[in-house]
């Protein structure tokens, strides 16, 4: 199961074509997906984006994270070395039915966006006490 998820992810990473919202280049942020207790955590590297610049949308099983990144201009300076491009980050995910989409929450810190995706009641692991009798 895990394996399937991973290969699916890899395929998507390279063929994802986010829309160009402002004409500039958009980038696919690197993400981690992890499971912790009763929620899934999604972490995305979005350097340069502030909380106000991040837009998270959920619609019919599709979760989209979009982070606007302002150009970091330095007037009157010329390029010497440019190893990365600056632009918006966009990535889309498919969310299974086991997630309670109404309760998705997010925070950003040091350019890392963290999304909390709580498991739906039905998908949670329940401990069942066995009573002696």
């Amino acid at each position, binding site marked *: 199961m*895990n394996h399937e*998820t*991973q290969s*699916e*992810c890899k*395929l*998507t*990473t*390279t*063929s*994802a*074509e986010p829309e160009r919202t402002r004409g500039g280049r958009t*980038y*696919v*942020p*690197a*993400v*981690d*997906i*992890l*499971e*912790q207790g009763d929620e*899934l*955590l*999604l*972490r995305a*590297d*979005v*350097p*340069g*984006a*502030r909380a106000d610049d991040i837009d998270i949308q959920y619609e019919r099983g*599709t979760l989209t994270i979009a982070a606007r990144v302002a150009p*970091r201009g*330095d007037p*009157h*300076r*010329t*390029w*010497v*070395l*440019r*190893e*990365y*491009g600056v632009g918006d980050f966009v*990535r*889309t*995910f*498919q*969310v*299974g039915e*086991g*997630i309670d989409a109404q309760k998705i929450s997010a925070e*950003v810190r*040091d*350019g*890392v966006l963290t999304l909390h995706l709580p*498991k*739906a009641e039905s*998908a949670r692991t329940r401990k069942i006490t066995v009573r002696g009798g």
Partner: protein
Amino acid sequence: MELIPWRNKNRTDLAERSVAQLRDEITSLFDRFFGGPRGFDLGRLTELAPPVEVREGEKDITVRAELPGVRAEDVRIEVTGHLLTIGGEKRAEKDEKRAGYRYSERQYGAFQRMVQLPAEVDADRVEATHQNGVLTIRLPKRPGTEARRVKVRHA
């Protein structure tokens, strides 16, 4: 319960898809070879080396590096002559040890990057800020070392 990065469902045409895939593979090959447009470069052997950008003005040099998830106190900056060294550690978030990974693309650990500066700088007046995961270093040039324009006179 699944969380799967999304595939473009509209692109059903097989030929078109394989062309796009090939193009993406070539792009990613190039990116890997030339240091990658995003995140850390895994091509370097021992440590992670973040990609940088360097700009030169009349009076100073600006060096930037994207270091998402790195705290300001974990960044170390050194200037020796024409050489700038950015080092530090990207620590895993606290909860990471207990959590089960399902999918991972982000990198953790020590990183170091050396940058050859285009001019001599005043090491005592170097300033650095780390905001929203972007490190900006301003290095004032040492006065008197700027490039001078030489006028060629008619003989």
